[in-house]
């Protein structure tokens, strides 16, 4: 049984998703239990993965380029832990909301398992299929409240995402035309030969895949869907989107860029600089747009673009420290941004408004939530005892070591701007409520759950995680280390 | 008219023969699967595939014989009509009208076949059916008179169809 663990991690939540549709009472229990089982299965692999072992599973027994196989290495393990852990918290967070029917949990489970599918698969076409599944589930999750704005946001995401995945698929087509195989590791073996014969096709496939994944990551010129989708979606979904879904795009980019287009090619077509430039642009853009927002969740959405810029800069630097920093920042951003969105969800239901100005007096009502919000936003800015600092620090160090001091200046400027907008929110939280004793509005029949344990628990856990990772960053770094060593072995032959 | 079981069995056999034509495979497994699927399809559709009140005038063999004759007449007429249409396409000599005709056939299937035949033959298409009245578009209307037009359009079809269906 133990050799089948990789597929079980993917399939069990998927199976549970369909079982959720069949039951009415046990939907939450099923969802949570299946995700917990997956986490446990993943953790059983940890000792092997963390010792730089590669776990391979051939589906249907067809190995190599013939069939689809699953590969779990450090990188996949890292990302899958993020996805599963946050997924569990999202499920817990959505428990008190009575509006969320079976379909919601079904979509949640499908999206989570498809994330794991994207992460574990070694077959690039299978990656596309899983990504498409993930995207469909996410479109639906965004549209879940079925109000006008959510439908519109979901639709624009669908259009952009459809274009992006079409680009990806076209890029896969070029790769297949060049190498005659779809397995990423085989592509990596055969691509150098193809590169010598037809450089144009290699570059074309690279550009297509990078652009397609860029849309999913929402780097600056390709970000059109993100502000609407992230801000309009229901809060747990926003947390999932911003925390994990975007990271899957990063994972795909890393996988394809570092593994398939390995070593020489990567340097030859100079894609480092492209990643770096994109990162810088989206960093500054996200920061300055967020400064101008009045809507809390929209602010957080633009902040996502800002932080992704940091990650891309780290990836573009490409040294060991830079990669460690980037991956660690992925983890940190996932934790912090989900905390912020969870808190924002509670704030919006409590105060009945999405405007930043309307949040006044919340700090007195629910100090614990406010505390979590403050901790996470301090992490976003990059203030020491919280985790965001450690990863930004690593990235800055790597940038200076690689000779890009200007990048550090840019990152710090963006951090200052993000301090400006986060502290604007924080000071509103602490300010006294307006004079009239307003009754919290029930937004579309939402029920207010003041201090509900299921709502608050994930926030506490995540905030504690922020502090823990900030005080003891070695925990996160040791998790990212195998992934980095894996990537480096491709980068430096 | 017909009992349910009869209709079911009849449908099943028709479908099974269709399956044989399709699969062209006489292995037992294939037959078994075909029988299963035919049964399934028959169960789902026998109720309207053969209507309870859908009867024929006479014996089955004679009906088939008449049907064949009818088909050949139809094809002959169709070729004539097509040549006519080709002629009119070249010359653009047309005079379209919409006329209404009445038919004596009562059976649904009969009316439908009549309408289809009309559609396929000289310069006419059925636009609508209401009861036993057919609205027909006529490419080269020689007359707009009710009875006369009916004679010209229905031609021999109504006779043959009237012999087949009630």
């Amino acid at each position: 049984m133990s050799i089948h663990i990789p597929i079980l991690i993917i399939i069990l939540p998927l199976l549970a998703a369909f079982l959720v549709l069949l039951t009415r009472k046990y939907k939450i229990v099923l969802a949570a239990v299946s995700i917990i089982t997956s986490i446990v299965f993943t953790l059983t692999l940890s000792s092997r993965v963390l010792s730089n072992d590669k776990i391979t599973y051939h589906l249907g027994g067809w190995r190599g380029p013939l069939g689809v196989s699953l590969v779990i290495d450090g990188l996949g393990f890292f990302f899958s832990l993020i996805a599963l852990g946050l997924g569990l918290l999202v499920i817990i967070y959505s428990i008190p909301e009575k509006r969320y029917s079976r379909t919601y949990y079904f979509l949640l489970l499908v999206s989570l398992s498809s994330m794991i599918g994207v992460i574990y698969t070694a077959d690039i076409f299978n990656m596309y299929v899983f990504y498409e599944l993930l995207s469909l589930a996410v479109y639906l999750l965004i549209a879940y409240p079925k109000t006008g704005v959510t439908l519109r946001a979901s639709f624009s995401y669908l259009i952009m995402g459809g274009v992006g995945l079409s680009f990806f698929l076209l890029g896969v087509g070029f790769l297949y035309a060049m190498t005659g195989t779809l397995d990423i590791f085989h592509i990596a073996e055969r691509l150098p030969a193809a590169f010598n014969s037809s450089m144009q096709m290699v570059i074309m496939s690279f550009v297509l895949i990078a652009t397609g994944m860029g849309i999913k990551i929402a780097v600056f010129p390709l970000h059109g869907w993100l502000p609407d989708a992230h801000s309009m979606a229901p809060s747990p979904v926003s947390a999932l989107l911003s925390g994990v879904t975007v990271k899957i795009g990063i994972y795909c980019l890393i996988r394809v860029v570092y593994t398939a287009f390995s070593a020489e090619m990567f340097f030859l077509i100079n894609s480092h600089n492209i990643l770096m430039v994109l990162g810088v642009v989206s960093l500054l853009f996200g920061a300055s747009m967020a400064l101008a927002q009045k809507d809390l969740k929209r602010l957080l959405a633009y902040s996502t673009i800002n932080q992704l810029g940091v990650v891309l800069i780290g990836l573009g630097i490409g040294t060991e420290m830079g990669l460690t920093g980037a991956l660690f920042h992925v983890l940190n951003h996932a934790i912090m941004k989900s905390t912020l969105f969870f808190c924002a969800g509670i704030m919006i239901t409590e105060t009945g408004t999405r405007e930043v100005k309307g949040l006044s007096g919340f700090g007195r009502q629910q100090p614990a939530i406010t505390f979590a919000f403050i901790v996470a936003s301090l992490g976003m800015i990059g203030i020491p005892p919280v985790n965001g600092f450690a990863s930004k620090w690593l990235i800055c160090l790597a940038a200076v070591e690689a000779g890009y001091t200007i990048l550090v200046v840019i990152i710090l400027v963006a951090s200052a701007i993000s301090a400006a907008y986060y502290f604007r929110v924080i000071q509103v939280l602490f300010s006294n409520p307006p004079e009239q004793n307003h009754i919290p509005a029930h937004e579309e029949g939402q029920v207010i759950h003041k201090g509900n344990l299921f709502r608050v628990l994930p926030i506490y856990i995540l905030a504690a995680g922020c502090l823990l990772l900030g005080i003891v960053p070695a925990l996160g770094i040791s998790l990212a280390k195998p992934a980095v060593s894996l990537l480096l072995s491709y980068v430096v032959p | 008219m017909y009992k349910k079981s009869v209709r079911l069995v009849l449908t099943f056999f028709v479908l099974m023969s269709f399956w044989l034509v399709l699969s062209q495979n006489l292995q037992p497994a294939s037959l078994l699967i075909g029988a299963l699927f035919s049964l399934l399809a028959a169960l789902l559709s026998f109720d309207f595939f053969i209507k309870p009140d859908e009867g024929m005038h006479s014996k089955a063999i004679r009906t088939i014989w008449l049907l064949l004759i009818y088909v050949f007449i139809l094809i002959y007429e169709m070729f004539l009509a097509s040549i006519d249409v080709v002629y009119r396409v070249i010359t653009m000599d047309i005079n379209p009208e919409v006329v209404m005709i009445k038919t004596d056939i009562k059976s649904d299937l009969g009316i439908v076949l009549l309408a289809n035949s009309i559609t396929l033959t000289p310069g006419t298409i059925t636009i609508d059916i209401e009861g036993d009245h057919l609205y027909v578009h006529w490419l080269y209307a020689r007359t707009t008179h009710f009875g006369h037009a009916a004679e010209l359009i229905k031609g021999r079809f109504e006779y043959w169809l009237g012999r087949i269906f009630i």
Partner: protein
Amino acid sequence: MFKEMKKVFFIIIILAMAILFILSADIEYGNPKNLDAANYYIEQGLYDTGAINLVASIYLGYRAYDTLIETIVLFVAVAGVVFCLRGKR
């Protein structure tokens, strides 16, 4: 305003078409390279999976996992359509 935008879009798309056309001009057609996997499928597919339709042998044999996921994609889409259009108008 929007008419001008359309012109800009048109120019952009023509540009992209031109670039793609130039870049893909020397892609060989009808003579794929690296056919080892394909030839394996053609030679061994029947013996491996027992399907004389080689596409089916890949679709349901070698890459049945893809098919499973694809079915789930369809299911999610159907569920989504039903979900979106459920309830009062």
